Protein backbone atom coordinates (compact mmCIF):
# COMPACT_ATOMS: atom_id res chain seq x y z
CA UNK A 1 0.00 0.00 0.00
CA UNK A 2 1.27 3.42 -0.88
CA UNK A 3 -0.09 6.75 0.13
CA UNK A 4 0.26 9.67 -2.23
CA UNK A 5 1.57 13.10 -1.48
CA UNK A 6 -1.91 14.44 -2.27
CA UNK A 7 -3.48 12.08 0.29
CA UNK A 8 -1.02 13.19 2.93
CA UNK A 9 -1.70 16.84 2.19
CA UNK A 10 -5.44 16.20 2.32
CA UNK A 11 -5.40 14.43 5.69
CA UNK A 12 -3.05 17.06 7.11
CA UNK A 13 -5.66 19.68 6.21
CA UNK A 14 -8.42 17.61 7.83
CA UNK A 15 -6.28 17.08 10.95
CA UNK A 16 -5.21 20.75 11.01
CA UNK A 17 -1.52 19.94 11.15
CA UNK A 18 0.76 22.13 9.10
CA UNK A 19 3.32 20.15 7.13
CA UNK A 20 6.48 21.59 5.72
CA UNK A 21 7.48 20.51 2.26
CA UNK A 22 10.55 18.65 3.49
CA UNK A 23 8.53 16.52 5.90
CA UNK A 24 6.42 14.95 3.19
CA UNK A 25 8.84 12.41 1.66
CA UNK A 26 9.53 10.83 5.07
CA UNK A 27 5.82 10.73 5.81
CA UNK A 28 5.09 9.07 2.47
CA UNK A 29 7.53 6.37 3.47
CA UNK A 30 6.43 5.97 7.11
CA UNK A 31 2.70 6.15 6.50
CA UNK A 32 3.10 3.82 3.52
CA UNK A 33 4.84 1.27 5.75
CA UNK A 34 2.16 1.57 8.41
CA UNK A 35 -0.60 1.11 5.84
CA UNK A 36 1.20 -1.94 4.43
CA UNK A 37 1.20 -3.42 7.93
CA UNK A 38 -2.48 -2.62 8.24
CA UNK A 39 -3.24 -4.20 4.87
CA UNK A 40 -2.85 -7.64 6.45
CA UNK A 41 -6.45 -7.10 7.51
CA UNK A 42 -7.71 -7.61 4.01
CA UNK A 43 -6.68 -11.26 4.22
CA UNK A 44 -9.07 -11.95 7.11
CA UNK A 45 -12.40 -13.56 6.36
CA UNK A 46 -14.91 -11.35 8.15
CA UNK A 47 -18.09 -12.43 6.40
CA UNK A 48 -20.97 -12.47 8.87
CA UNK A 49 -18.77 -11.01 11.61
CA UNK A 50 -20.27 -8.12 13.57
CA UNK A 51 -17.88 -5.24 14.25
CA UNK A 52 -16.75 -4.96 17.88
CA UNK A 53 -16.62 -1.40 19.24
CA UNK A 54 -16.11 -2.27 22.91
CA UNK A 55 -14.65 -5.35 24.52
CA UNK A 56 -17.47 -5.64 27.03
CA UNK A 57 -20.97 -6.18 25.77
CA UNK A 58 -22.30 -3.46 28.04
CA UNK A 59 -25.04 -0.87 27.57
CA UNK A 60 -24.97 2.80 28.41
CA UNK A 61 -25.94 4.00 31.88
CA UNK A 62 -27.91 7.28 31.92
CA UNK A 63 -27.43 10.13 34.34
CA UNK A 64 -30.23 11.87 36.27
CA UNK A 65 -30.96 15.40 35.01
CA UNK A 66 -29.56 17.23 38.03
CA UNK A 67 -27.16 20.15 38.07
CA UNK A 68 -23.89 18.95 39.61
CA UNK A 69 -21.44 21.50 38.20
CA UNK A 70 -20.67 24.89 39.66
CA UNK A 71 -19.10 27.91 38.02
CA UNK A 72 -15.33 27.41 37.82
CA UNK A 73 -14.61 29.91 35.09
CA UNK A 74 -11.82 31.58 37.00
CA UNK A 75 -9.90 28.33 37.52
CA UNK A 76 -10.41 27.20 33.93
CA UNK A 77 -9.51 30.53 32.37
CA UNK A 78 -6.41 30.89 34.54
CA UNK A 79 -4.84 28.23 32.29
CA UNK A 80 -6.21 29.57 29.00
CA UNK A 81 -3.92 31.12 26.37
CA UNK A 82 -6.11 34.19 25.76
CA UNK A 83 -9.31 35.42 27.38
CA UNK A 84 -11.19 38.65 27.76
CA UNK A 85 -14.44 39.47 29.57
CA UNK A 86 -14.88 35.79 30.34
CA UNK A 87 -14.57 34.77 26.68
CA UNK A 88 -11.91 32.62 25.05
CA UNK A 89 -10.24 34.62 22.28
CA UNK A 90 -9.34 33.28 18.85
CA UNK A 91 -8.30 35.05 15.66
CA UNK A 92 -11.34 36.57 14.01
CA UNK A 93 -13.74 33.96 12.68
CA UNK A 94 -15.19 34.85 9.30
CA UNK A 95 -18.53 33.10 8.69
Amino acid at each position, binding site marked *: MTISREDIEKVAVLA*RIRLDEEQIPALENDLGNILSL*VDQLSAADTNNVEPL*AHPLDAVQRLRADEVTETNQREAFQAIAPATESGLYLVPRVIE
Partner: protein
Amino acid sequence: MHNKSVAELSRELESGKISSVELTREFLDRIKAEDRQYNSFITVTEDQALADAKTADEQRAAGKASVWTGVPFAHKDIFCTNGVATTCGSKMLANFVPPYDATVTANFRAAGAVCLGKTNMDEFAMGSSNESSFFGAVTNPWGLGNGEKRVPGGSSGGSAAAIAARLVPAATATDTGGSIRQPAALCGVTGLKPTYGRVSRYGMIAFASSLDQGGTMARTAEDNALMLNVMAGFDPKDSTCVDRAVPDYTATLNEPLKGLRIGLPKEYFSDQLSPAMEQQVRNAVKEYEKLGATVKEVSLPHAKLAIAAYYVIAPAEASANLSRFDGVRYGYRCDNPKDLNDLYTRTRAEGFGGEVKRRILVGTYALSAGYFDAYYLKAQKVRRLIQQDFVNAFNEVDVLMSPVTPSPAFVQGEKTSDPVTMYLEDVFTIAVNLAGVPAMSVPAGFVDGLPVGLQIIGNYFEEARLLNAAHQYQQVTDWHQKLPQ
Protein backbone atom coordinates in the same frame (compact mmCIF):
# COMPACT_ATOMS: atom_id res chain seq x y z
CA MET B 1 14.18 1.42 53.24
CA HIS B 2 14.15 2.07 49.50
CA ASN B 3 14.52 -1.63 48.76
CA LYS B 4 11.37 -2.50 50.62
CA SER B 5 8.00 -3.19 49.06
CA VAL B 6 4.84 -1.17 49.65
CA ALA B 7 3.56 -3.89 51.99
CA GLU B 8 6.80 -3.78 53.99
CA LEU B 9 6.91 0.02 54.12
CA SER B 10 3.33 0.09 55.32
CA ARG B 11 4.27 -2.23 58.17
CA GLU B 12 7.33 -0.11 59.03
CA LEU B 13 5.11 2.98 59.21
CA GLU B 14 2.56 1.12 61.31
CA SER B 15 5.23 -0.09 63.74
CA GLY B 16 6.51 3.46 64.10
CA LYS B 17 10.05 2.55 63.02
CA ILE B 18 9.96 5.36 60.52
CA SER B 19 7.70 8.28 59.81
CA SER B 20 6.17 9.10 56.45
CA VAL B 21 8.10 12.37 56.39
CA GLU B 22 11.40 10.48 56.84
CA LEU B 23 10.43 7.92 54.22
CA THR B 24 9.29 10.57 51.77
CA ARG B 25 12.50 12.52 52.33
CA GLU B 26 14.56 9.39 51.65
CA PHE B 27 12.88 8.75 48.30
CA LEU B 28 12.97 12.43 47.32
CA ASP B 29 16.72 12.46 48.05
CA ARG B 30 17.22 9.39 45.89
CA ILE B 31 15.29 11.01 43.02
CA LYS B 32 17.41 14.14 43.37
CA ALA B 33 20.66 12.20 43.44
CA GLU B 34 19.98 9.59 40.81
CA ASP B 35 17.25 10.55 38.40
CA ARG B 36 19.61 12.60 36.27
CA GLN B 37 20.81 9.36 34.71
CA TYR B 38 17.32 7.91 34.13
CA ASN B 39 15.12 10.97 33.52
CA SER B 40 12.20 8.96 34.86
CA PHE B 41 10.38 11.94 36.39
CA ILE B 42 8.92 14.94 34.54
CA THR B 43 7.79 16.69 37.71
CA VAL B 44 8.85 16.12 41.32
CA THR B 45 6.43 17.62 43.83
CA GLU B 46 8.74 17.85 46.81
CA ASP B 47 6.89 20.43 48.92
CA GLN B 48 3.49 18.90 48.34
CA ALA B 49 4.84 15.41 49.08
CA LEU B 50 6.38 16.48 52.38
CA ALA B 51 3.19 18.29 53.38
CA ASP B 52 1.12 15.21 52.52
CA ALA B 53 3.56 13.02 54.45
CA LYS B 54 3.16 15.22 57.50
CA THR B 55 -0.62 14.94 57.26
CA ALA B 56 -0.26 11.17 56.90
CA ASP B 57 1.87 10.96 60.02
CA GLU B 58 -0.75 12.92 61.93
CA GLN B 59 -3.48 10.61 60.69
CA ARG B 60 -1.49 7.56 61.68
CA ALA B 61 -0.87 9.08 65.13
CA ALA B 62 -4.61 9.64 65.42
CA GLY B 63 -5.20 5.97 64.64
CA LYS B 64 -6.86 6.74 61.31
CA ALA B 65 -4.38 5.06 58.99
CA SER B 66 -5.03 2.61 56.18
CA VAL B 67 -2.44 0.47 54.34
CA TRP B 68 -1.49 3.32 52.03
CA THR B 69 -1.36 6.15 54.58
CA GLY B 70 2.02 7.82 54.20
CA VAL B 71 3.41 5.40 51.58
CA PRO B 72 5.25 7.18 48.74
CA PHE B 73 4.44 6.43 45.12
CA ALA B 74 4.27 8.27 41.78
CA HIS B 75 1.74 8.89 39.01
CA LYS B 76 2.35 8.44 35.34
CA ASP B 77 2.07 11.95 33.91
CA ILE B 78 -1.10 10.99 32.05
CA PHE B 79 -3.29 11.14 35.19
CA CYS B 80 -4.58 14.64 35.90
CA THR B 81 -3.45 15.96 39.28
CA ASN B 82 -5.20 19.04 40.66
CA GLY B 83 -2.69 21.88 40.87
CA VAL B 84 0.24 19.84 39.55
CA ALA B 85 1.44 19.98 35.93
CA THR B 86 0.09 17.12 33.83
CA THR B 87 1.96 17.01 30.54
CA CYS B 88 1.27 13.62 28.96
CA GLY B 89 4.89 13.84 27.81
CA SER B 90 3.98 16.52 25.28
CA LYS B 91 4.97 20.07 24.48
CA MET B 92 1.24 20.54 23.86
CA LEU B 93 0.59 20.22 27.61
CA ALA B 94 3.95 21.32 28.99
CA ASN B 95 2.25 24.25 30.74
CA PHE B 96 -0.99 22.44 31.62
CA VAL B 97 -1.93 22.47 35.32
CA PRO B 98 -5.37 20.87 35.63
CA PRO B 99 -7.79 22.32 38.19
CA TYR B 100 -9.19 18.81 38.77
CA ASP B 101 -8.12 15.29 39.71
CA ALA B 102 -8.44 12.10 37.73
CA THR B 103 -10.58 9.56 39.60
CA VAL B 104 -7.46 7.40 40.07
CA THR B 105 -5.60 10.41 41.50
CA ALA B 106 -8.46 11.18 43.87
CA ASN B 107 -8.56 7.54 45.00
CA PHE B 108 -4.88 7.55 45.99
CA ARG B 109 -5.34 10.90 47.69
CA ALA B 110 -8.26 9.52 49.69
CA ALA B 111 -6.16 6.48 50.65
CA GLY B 112 -3.53 8.79 52.14
CA ALA B 113 -0.70 7.80 49.79
CA VAL B 114 2.05 10.37 49.22
CA CYS B 115 2.64 11.26 45.57
CA LEU B 116 6.27 12.18 44.86
CA GLY B 117 5.70 13.41 41.35
CA LYS B 118 4.82 12.58 37.78
CA THR B 119 6.70 10.01 35.75
CA ASN B 120 7.96 10.35 32.21
CA MET B 121 6.19 8.67 29.32
CA ASP B 122 5.99 8.50 25.56
CA GLU B 123 4.10 11.48 24.23
CA PHE B 124 0.36 10.86 24.65
CA ALA B 125 1.28 7.25 25.50
CA MET B 126 2.25 6.59 21.88
CA GLY B 127 5.42 4.57 21.88
CA SER B 128 7.23 1.49 23.08
CA SER B 129 10.57 2.97 24.10
CA ASN B 130 9.88 6.23 25.94
CA GLU B 131 11.88 8.05 23.31
CA SER B 132 8.96 10.15 22.06
CA SER B 133 8.65 12.20 25.26
CA PHE B 134 9.00 15.96 24.84
CA PHE B 135 10.90 15.85 28.13
CA GLY B 136 13.57 13.55 26.79
CA ALA B 137 14.11 9.80 26.63
CA VAL B 138 14.11 7.67 29.76
CA THR B 139 17.09 5.38 30.32
CA ASN B 140 16.62 1.84 31.59
CA PRO B 141 18.55 1.24 34.85
CA TRP B 142 19.43 -2.20 33.46
CA GLY B 143 22.44 -2.14 31.15
CA LEU B 144 23.72 1.18 32.44
CA GLY B 145 26.29 -0.75 34.44
CA ASN B 146 27.84 -1.80 31.13
CA GLY B 147 27.67 1.74 29.91
CA GLU B 148 24.76 0.97 27.60
CA LYS B 149 21.85 3.34 27.39
CA ARG B 150 18.90 1.07 26.81
CA VAL B 151 15.23 1.93 26.54
CA PRO B 152 12.93 1.19 29.48
CA GLY B 153 10.07 0.36 27.10
CA GLY B 154 6.98 2.48 26.80
CA SER B 155 4.81 4.21 27.12
CA SER B 156 4.94 3.86 30.94
CA GLY B 157 8.76 3.82 30.82
CA GLY B 158 9.21 6.47 33.51
CA SER B 159 7.14 4.50 36.02
CA ALA B 160 8.99 1.26 35.23
CA ALA B 161 12.47 2.82 35.35
CA ALA B 162 11.74 4.70 38.59
CA ILE B 163 10.61 1.49 40.30
CA ALA B 164 13.56 -0.51 38.94
CA ALA B 165 15.95 2.19 40.17
CA ARG B 166 14.27 2.15 43.60
CA LEU B 167 13.24 5.81 43.28
CA VAL B 168 9.67 4.86 44.20
CA PRO B 169 8.17 1.60 45.42
CA ALA B 170 5.14 1.83 43.15
CA ALA B 171 3.71 3.93 40.33
CA THR B 172 0.53 4.13 38.30
CA ALA B 173 0.66 3.35 34.60
CA THR B 174 -1.60 2.91 31.59
CA ASP B 175 -1.78 0.28 28.89
CA THR B 176 -3.33 0.76 25.43
CA GLY B 177 -1.31 -1.83 23.51
CA GLY B 178 1.25 -3.03 26.05
CA SER B 179 2.32 0.19 27.73
CA ILE B 180 2.34 -1.35 31.23
CA ARG B 181 3.51 -4.88 30.46
CA GLN B 182 6.30 -4.10 27.99
CA PRO B 183 8.15 -1.53 30.16
CA ALA B 184 7.57 -3.70 33.25
CA ALA B 185 9.21 -6.60 31.38
CA LEU B 186 12.11 -4.51 30.10
CA CYS B 187 12.79 -3.02 33.54
CA GLY B 188 12.29 -6.19 35.57
CA VAL B 189 9.28 -5.02 37.57
CA THR B 190 5.75 -6.40 37.98
CA GLY B 191 2.85 -4.72 36.19
CA LEU B 192 -0.85 -5.35 35.71
CA LYS B 193 -3.23 -4.15 33.02
CA PRO B 194 -6.73 -4.76 34.43
CA THR B 195 -9.85 -5.72 32.48
CA TYR B 196 -11.12 -2.85 30.30
CA GLY B 197 -13.61 -0.92 32.47
CA ARG B 198 -12.20 -2.10 35.82
CA VAL B 199 -10.40 1.21 36.52
CA SER B 200 -11.95 4.60 35.76
CA ARG B 201 -10.55 6.50 32.79
CA TYR B 202 -11.87 9.85 34.03
CA GLY B 203 -9.02 12.35 34.10
CA MET B 204 -6.65 9.91 32.43
CA ILE B 205 -5.74 11.67 29.21
CA ALA B 206 -7.17 9.63 26.36
CA PHE B 207 -5.14 8.00 23.61
CA ALA B 208 -7.55 5.33 22.30
CA SER B 209 -10.71 5.25 24.41
CA SER B 210 -11.80 1.67 23.71
CA LEU B 211 -8.33 0.29 24.51
CA ASP B 212 -6.89 2.54 27.24
CA GLN B 213 -6.81 1.11 30.74
CA GLY B 214 -5.14 2.39 33.87
CA GLY B 215 -3.17 -0.12 35.88
CA THR B 216 -0.47 -0.84 38.38
CA MET B 217 3.30 -1.20 38.53
CA ALA B 218 5.50 -2.16 41.48
CA ARG B 219 8.18 -4.70 42.32
CA THR B 220 5.92 -7.40 43.70
CA ALA B 221 2.57 -8.90 42.80
CA GLU B 222 1.41 -8.19 46.34
CA ASP B 223 2.07 -4.45 45.84
CA ASN B 224 0.16 -4.56 42.56
CA ALA B 225 -2.76 -6.04 44.51
CA LEU B 226 -2.55 -3.24 47.07
CA MET B 227 -2.58 -0.67 44.26
CA LEU B 228 -5.50 -2.27 42.46
CA ASN B 229 -7.46 -2.24 45.72
CA VAL B 230 -7.22 1.56 45.56
CA MET B 231 -7.72 1.99 41.81
CA ALA B 232 -10.45 -0.46 40.83
CA GLY B 233 -14.12 0.32 41.09
CA PHE B 234 -17.14 1.95 39.54
CA ASP B 235 -17.00 5.62 38.59
CA PRO B 236 -20.20 7.39 37.52
CA LYS B 237 -18.05 9.85 35.54
CA ASP B 238 -16.84 7.18 33.08
CA SER B 239 -19.58 5.63 30.93
CA THR B 240 -17.36 2.65 30.06
CA CYS B 241 -16.43 1.90 33.69
CA VAL B 242 -18.03 -1.27 35.01
CA ASP B 243 -20.34 -1.34 38.04
CA ARG B 244 -19.19 -4.58 39.58
CA ALA B 245 -18.04 -5.50 43.08
CA VAL B 246 -14.32 -5.12 43.75
CA PRO B 247 -12.75 -7.98 45.71
CA ASP B 248 -9.85 -7.50 48.13
CA TYR B 249 -7.09 -8.47 45.72
CA THR B 250 -4.70 -9.35 48.56
CA ALA B 251 -7.12 -11.86 50.08
CA THR B 252 -6.47 -14.59 47.50
CA LEU B 253 -2.72 -14.12 46.96
CA ASN B 254 -1.88 -17.22 48.94
CA GLU B 255 -4.33 -19.61 47.32
CA PRO B 256 -2.47 -22.75 46.18
CA LEU B 257 -2.02 -23.12 42.41
CA LYS B 258 -2.67 -26.83 42.35
CA GLY B 259 -4.85 -27.64 39.38
CA LEU B 260 -4.34 -24.25 37.68
CA ARG B 261 -4.78 -24.86 33.94
CA ILE B 262 -2.19 -22.96 31.91
CA GLY B 263 -2.49 -22.49 28.16
CA LEU B 264 0.49 -21.61 25.98
CA PRO B 265 -0.71 -19.85 22.81
CA LYS B 266 1.37 -21.40 20.06
CA GLU B 267 1.26 -18.15 18.04
CA TYR B 268 3.23 -16.45 20.83
CA PHE B 269 6.09 -18.93 20.67
CA SER B 270 6.86 -18.12 17.06
CA ASP B 271 10.09 -17.42 15.25
CA GLN B 272 9.77 -13.75 16.24
CA LEU B 273 10.90 -14.86 19.67
CA SER B 274 14.60 -15.33 20.31
CA PRO B 275 15.54 -18.83 21.58
CA ALA B 276 17.11 -17.37 24.71
CA MET B 277 13.92 -15.49 25.55
CA GLU B 278 11.81 -18.55 24.86
CA GLN B 279 13.99 -20.59 27.22
CA GLN B 280 13.38 -18.16 30.09
CA VAL B 281 9.62 -18.22 29.53
CA ARG B 282 9.55 -22.03 29.36
CA ASN B 283 11.59 -22.20 32.56
CA ALA B 284 9.00 -20.03 34.28
CA VAL B 285 6.21 -22.29 33.07
CA LYS B 286 8.13 -25.25 34.53
CA GLU B 287 8.09 -23.51 37.93
CA TYR B 288 4.30 -23.35 37.66
CA GLU B 289 4.17 -27.06 36.90
CA LYS B 290 6.16 -27.63 40.08
CA LEU B 291 3.49 -25.61 41.91
CA GLY B 292 0.84 -28.02 40.66
CA ALA B 293 -0.35 -26.36 37.47
CA THR B 294 -1.11 -28.26 34.28
CA VAL B 295 0.05 -26.97 30.91
CA LYS B 296 -1.32 -27.38 27.40
CA GLU B 297 -0.88 -25.70 24.08
CA VAL B 298 -3.74 -23.54 22.84
CA SER B 299 -4.29 -21.41 19.77
CA LEU B 300 -5.24 -17.78 19.21
CA PRO B 301 -5.61 -18.12 15.45
CA HIS B 302 -6.29 -14.41 14.76
CA ALA B 303 -3.58 -13.07 17.05
CA LYS B 304 -1.35 -12.40 14.06
CA LEU B 305 -3.85 -9.79 12.86
CA ALA B 306 -3.82 -7.93 16.17
CA ILE B 307 -1.15 -5.39 15.22
CA ALA B 308 -2.89 -4.58 11.95
CA ALA B 309 -6.29 -4.11 13.65
CA TYR B 310 -4.71 -2.10 16.44
CA TYR B 311 -2.95 0.30 14.08
CA VAL B 312 -6.30 1.19 12.54
CA ILE B 313 -8.45 1.39 15.66
CA ALA B 314 -5.98 3.14 17.97
CA PRO B 315 -4.94 5.90 15.53
CA ALA B 316 -8.56 6.40 14.42
CA GLU B 317 -9.73 6.97 17.98
CA ALA B 318 -6.63 9.04 18.76
CA SER B 319 -7.17 11.27 15.72
CA ALA B 320 -10.48 12.43 17.26
CA ASN B 321 -9.36 12.32 20.91
CA LEU B 322 -6.48 14.68 20.17
CA SER B 323 -8.58 17.21 18.23
CA ARG B 324 -9.28 19.06 21.49
CA PHE B 325 -5.67 20.23 21.56
CA ASP B 326 -6.30 23.28 19.42
CA GLY B 327 -4.66 26.14 21.31
CA VAL B 328 -7.97 27.70 22.31
CA ARG B 329 -8.79 26.77 25.91
CA TYR B 330 -5.58 25.39 27.45
CA GLY B 331 -2.15 24.08 26.60
CA TYR B 332 0.24 25.20 23.90
CA ARG B 333 -0.68 27.95 21.47
CA CYS B 334 1.60 29.07 18.65
CA ASP B 335 2.95 32.61 18.68
CA ASN B 336 1.05 35.34 16.80
CA PRO B 337 -1.47 33.26 14.83
CA LYS B 338 -2.44 35.27 11.77
CA ASP B 339 -5.83 33.66 11.37
CA LEU B 340 -7.87 30.76 12.74
CA ASN B 341 -6.40 28.17 10.41
CA ASP B 342 -2.91 29.33 11.25
CA LEU B 343 -3.74 29.01 14.97
CA TYR B 344 -4.88 25.42 14.50
CA THR B 345 -2.28 24.15 12.06
CA ARG B 346 0.74 25.76 13.63
CA THR B 347 -0.29 25.02 17.23
CA ARG B 348 -0.72 21.35 16.33
CA ALA B 349 2.38 21.18 14.11
CA GLU B 350 4.53 22.72 16.84
CA GLY B 351 2.82 21.18 19.88
CA PHE B 352 2.80 17.52 18.78
CA GLY B 353 5.87 15.39 18.20
CA GLY B 354 6.53 13.22 15.14
CA GLU B 355 5.01 9.94 16.32
CA VAL B 356 1.83 11.62 17.53
CA LYS B 357 1.45 13.41 14.22
CA ARG B 358 2.01 10.19 12.28
CA ARG B 359 -0.72 8.43 14.22
CA ILE B 360 -3.17 11.32 13.88
CA LEU B 361 -2.57 11.34 10.12
CA VAL B 362 -2.98 7.55 9.83
CA GLY B 363 -6.17 7.67 11.91
CA THR B 364 -7.56 10.57 9.90
CA TYR B 365 -6.82 8.68 6.69
CA ALA B 366 -8.44 5.46 7.94
CA LEU B 367 -11.66 7.30 8.81
CA SER B 368 -11.81 9.48 5.70
CA ALA B 369 -14.38 9.12 2.97
CA GLY B 370 -13.95 5.97 0.95
CA TYR B 371 -11.67 4.19 3.41
CA PHE B 372 -13.90 3.72 6.46
CA ASP B 373 -15.20 0.27 5.52
CA ALA B 374 -11.89 -1.10 4.33
CA TYR B 375 -10.01 0.04 7.39
CA TYR B 376 -12.08 0.92 10.43
CA LEU B 377 -15.02 -1.41 9.98
CA LYS B 378 -12.76 -4.25 8.88
CA ALA B 379 -10.53 -3.72 11.91
CA GLN B 380 -13.53 -3.84 14.24
CA LYS B 381 -14.63 -7.12 12.68
CA VAL B 382 -11.16 -8.56 13.12
CA ARG B 383 -11.30 -7.28 16.69
CA ARG B 384 -14.31 -9.50 17.31
CA LEU B 385 -12.48 -12.50 15.87
CA ILE B 386 -9.57 -11.81 18.21
CA GLN B 387 -11.87 -11.47 21.19
CA GLN B 388 -13.55 -14.73 20.26
CA ASP B 389 -10.13 -16.45 20.26
CA PHE B 390 -9.67 -15.49 23.90
CA VAL B 391 -13.20 -16.55 24.84
CA ASN B 392 -12.54 -19.93 23.24
CA ALA B 393 -9.15 -20.30 24.95
CA PHE B 394 -10.62 -19.56 28.36
CA ASN B 395 -13.14 -22.34 27.85
CA GLU B 396 -10.16 -24.67 28.02
CA VAL B 397 -7.71 -23.06 30.45
CA ASP B 398 -7.62 -20.65 33.40
CA VAL B 399 -4.73 -18.46 32.31
CA LEU B 400 -2.53 -18.00 29.25
CA MET B 401 1.24 -17.60 29.53
CA SER B 402 3.63 -16.16 26.97
CA PRO B 403 6.59 -13.86 26.60
CA VAL B 404 5.85 -10.13 26.92
CA THR B 405 8.34 -8.98 24.30
CA PRO B 406 10.24 -10.70 21.49
CA SER B 407 13.58 -9.52 22.89
CA PRO B 408 14.99 -7.71 25.93
CA ALA B 409 15.54 -3.96 26.24
CA PHE B 410 17.15 -2.52 23.12
CA VAL B 411 19.61 0.33 22.83
CA GLN B 412 18.21 3.85 22.55
CA GLY B 413 17.86 5.02 18.96
CA GLU B 414 17.90 1.48 17.56
CA LYS B 415 14.27 1.48 16.42
CA THR B 416 13.40 5.15 16.12
CA SER B 417 14.03 5.36 12.39
CA ASP B 418 11.27 2.96 11.42
CA PRO B 419 7.90 3.23 13.18
CA VAL B 420 6.81 -0.24 12.07
CA THR B 421 9.83 -1.94 13.65
CA MET B 422 8.92 -0.20 16.88
CA TYR B 423 5.28 -1.31 16.58
CA LEU B 424 6.38 -4.94 16.42
CA GLU B 425 7.68 -4.61 20.00
CA ASP B 426 4.05 -5.04 21.07
CA VAL B 427 3.35 -8.14 18.98
CA PHE B 428 2.53 -10.27 22.07
CA THR B 429 0.69 -7.64 24.09
CA ILE B 430 -1.72 -5.92 21.71
CA ALA B 431 -4.34 -8.66 21.28
CA VAL B 432 -5.06 -8.46 25.02
CA ASN B 433 -6.13 -4.80 24.68
CA LEU B 434 -8.33 -5.54 21.67
CA ALA B 435 -10.08 -8.28 23.66
CA GLY B 436 -10.15 -6.20 26.85
CA VAL B 437 -8.94 -9.04 29.11
CA PRO B 438 -6.51 -8.47 32.03
CA ALA B 439 -2.84 -9.39 31.83
CA MET B 440 0.35 -9.09 33.86
CA SER B 441 4.06 -8.94 33.28
CA VAL B 442 6.12 -10.76 35.88
CA PRO B 443 9.97 -10.81 36.06
CA ALA B 444 11.05 -14.29 34.93
CA GLY B 445 14.80 -14.33 34.33
CA PHE B 446 17.49 -12.61 32.34
CA VAL B 447 18.98 -12.71 28.87
CA ASP B 448 22.40 -11.10 28.47
CA GLY B 449 21.94 -9.51 31.90
CA LEU B 450 18.67 -7.89 30.88
CA PRO B 451 15.28 -8.70 32.44
CA VAL B 452 12.74 -10.95 30.74
CA GLY B 453 9.02 -10.75 31.45
CA LEU B 454 6.46 -13.53 31.64
CA GLN B 455 3.01 -12.50 30.43
CA ILE B 456 0.06 -14.01 32.29
CA ILE B 457 -3.32 -13.34 30.66
CA GLY B 458 -6.60 -13.97 32.45
CA ASN B 459 -10.29 -14.10 31.66
CA TYR B 460 -12.44 -10.98 32.12
CA PHE B 461 -12.33 -9.62 35.71
CA GLU B 462 -9.97 -12.36 36.89
CA GLU B 463 -7.30 -9.96 38.14
CA ALA B 464 -7.32 -11.77 41.50
CA ARG B 465 -6.36 -15.03 39.80
CA LEU B 466 -3.50 -13.34 37.92
CA LEU B 467 -2.19 -11.70 41.08
CA ASN B 468 -2.43 -15.01 42.93
CA ALA B 469 -0.46 -16.79 40.17
CA ALA B 470 2.18 -14.06 40.08
CA HIS B 471 2.50 -13.92 43.86
CA GLN B 472 2.96 -17.68 44.20
CA TYR B 473 5.65 -17.58 41.52
CA GLN B 474 7.40 -14.77 43.41
CA GLN B 475 7.40 -16.92 46.56
CA VAL B 476 9.62 -19.48 44.78
CA THR B 477 11.71 -17.15 42.58
CA ASP B 478 13.62 -13.95 43.24
CA TRP B 479 13.82 -12.40 39.75
CA HIS B 480 11.68 -9.50 40.97
CA GLN B 481 14.18 -8.76 43.76
CA LYS B 482 17.21 -8.38 41.48
CA LEU B 483 18.83 -4.97 41.45
CA PRO B 484 20.33 -3.31 38.40
CA GLN B 485 24.05 -2.63 38.77
